[in-house]
């Protein structure tokens, strides 16, 4: 086991892909540092970048933040909202997409409404959802749900509709029942699209939760006895308080959160769809 793990780590360090990635990150940080300090160092301001705090200052802030429980409770709150919204979107979106794909009648009834609601940006729902849901927590989760929901449904529907007719015909020819066709053809045939929908959906959920937290304000969340308003509110609060390094730290935190969630889903998806990945 240990030697296996060591070999895996060794393989990562030996791969050109890893070093290319590492190089691009280091280069980005160096350019940023130089850019934001260029006025002090060379007397030439780089437009925009010179006003951004340098990565070394952001790193210093980070090292303070990791010891601050409020920072971690922001993480916790946002993560919770994303997962509540995302899981609800999967639970509702996958069956809905499948139902639209398998029933022409249901498709005819639901698709027009769906298509009218879909282009409404999730953030446009924020005021209405604050009015309709009893707690702020629920309204933020609901908006997060919307962010992921439409993408998941569209992907599931498209995936199920794109299943090649030959598979139905072959299954019929071998004596499959209706349930067999659904269970053995439609479900596995749609699975790759479900994975794509989920990976896109969770990214959108992060994008939406942060904005929803900014708009709805963490202040009232605090007054409800909550410890903070999530990462979105953390950024907004840092802006109001004038701590520019914290703004950047908050942004990077969200980037990391989104990357980790998508990577986990992609990995999970790979395990669910082994036929797409093996060589």
């Amino acid at each position, binding site marked *: 086991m240990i030697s296996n793990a060591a070999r895996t780590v060794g393989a990562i360090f030996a791969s050109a892909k890893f070093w290319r990635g590492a190089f691009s990150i280091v280069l980005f940080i160096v350019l940023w540092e130089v850019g934001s300090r260029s006025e002090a160092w060379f007397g030439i301001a780089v437009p925009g970048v010179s006003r951004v705090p340098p990565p070394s200052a952001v790193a210093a802030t980070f090292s303070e933040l990791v010891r601050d429980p409020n920072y971690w409770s922001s993480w916790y709150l946002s993560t919770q909202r994303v997962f509540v919204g995302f899981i609800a979107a999967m639970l509702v979106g996958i069956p809905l997409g499948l139902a639209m*794909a*398998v*029933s*022409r009648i249901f498709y005819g009834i639901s698709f027009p409404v769906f298509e009218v609601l879909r282009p409404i940006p999730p953030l446009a729902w924020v005021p209405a959802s604050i009015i309709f849901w009893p707690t702020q927590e629920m309204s933020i989760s609901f908006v997060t749900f919307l962010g992921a929901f439409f993408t998941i449904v569209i992907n599931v529907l498209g995936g*199920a*509709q794109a*299943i*090649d*007719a*030959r*598979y*139905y*015909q*072959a*299954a*019929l*020819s*071998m*004596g*499959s*029942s*209706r*349930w*067999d*066709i*659904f269970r*053995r*053809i*439609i479900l*596995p*045939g749609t*699975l790759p699209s479900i994975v794509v929908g989920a990976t896109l959906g969770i990214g959108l959920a992060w994008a939406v939760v942060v904005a929803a937290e900014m708009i709805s304000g963490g202040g009232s969340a605090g007054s409800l006895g909550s410890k903070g308003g999530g990462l979105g509110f953390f950024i907004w609060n840092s802006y109001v308080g004038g701590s520019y390094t914290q703004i950047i730290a908050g942004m990077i935190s969200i980037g990391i959160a989104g990357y980790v969630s998508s990577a986990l889903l992609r990995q999970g998806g790979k395990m669910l*769809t*082994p*036929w*797409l990945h*093996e*060589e």
Partner: protein
Amino acid sequence: MNVPRTWDEAAALARPAGAPLAVSQAQRKGAIRILDVTKTYGSGATAVSAVENCTFDVPAGEITTVVGPSGCGKTTLLNAIAGFHSITSGKIFLDDEILCGPGQLQAEPGPDRVVVFQNGALFPWKTVIENVAFGPRMQGRLSKKQAYEKARTLLADAGLHGLENNYPGEISSGMRRRVEIVRALMNEPRVLLLDEPYRALDSLTKSVMHEALLQLLEKNRLTIFFITHDLEEAIFLGHQVVIMTTRPCRPKKILTIDLPYPRDYSMLTTRRFRDYLDETLEAVHEEALKAFAAGEKER
């Protein structure tokens, strides 16, 4: 009803879950009789006949190859036998049992007539052995263990040993086609319906596939209905070659190929083979010209 393309259409043809298979698995010979079959698309002035007054026999235990111009309606006929498609009039029998005719214009699809498709239809999400064991599992004829055992035996017979746990995407297209034929044989069909199964293969792979198919036929006595564009293939494989007219499709000429089995590739250069080929070519060419002229007129 059209060929099932979506879940709705497939579900309408499939038996409800739990309902028994209507098809009897009685081991009979598998002769198909096509009697005065017509298939018309649309109605009134815009009606187009794909098949018209088509009559011929597919003898049991033999290979019947069907050739004809593109789009002439060969596949329509195959779909009618398979039960994917209704006919407008006429009758189709399987061993004196009526598959479709007046009163029931669409046959029920079933494992006694299994189709092997032009572009292949192995389920990409199932491994080779899961694909091959699919039919008997669906029909509830064999337990999972029995089905896998039988699948292993048949795969080994076809020279496909060791691929059991690969996904179709991981093996070559020639192997995929062989796996698909094994999958069809697992259903113990009376008739194998092949719709240009080797079209996408290179000629070298094709020749290997032909010999493999002939060997399979020797081991499993069954009837083969084989649509192709390739005239050499048609003559090399067939006991009889049915040459179709251009739309609407009906037999123009039926050629009995009096060459001994097992056949091998040295036959391709014999005088007899060349004569059959010339005869077929002439008939097909005539129809191709008609098809071309008809196409020009439509323009």
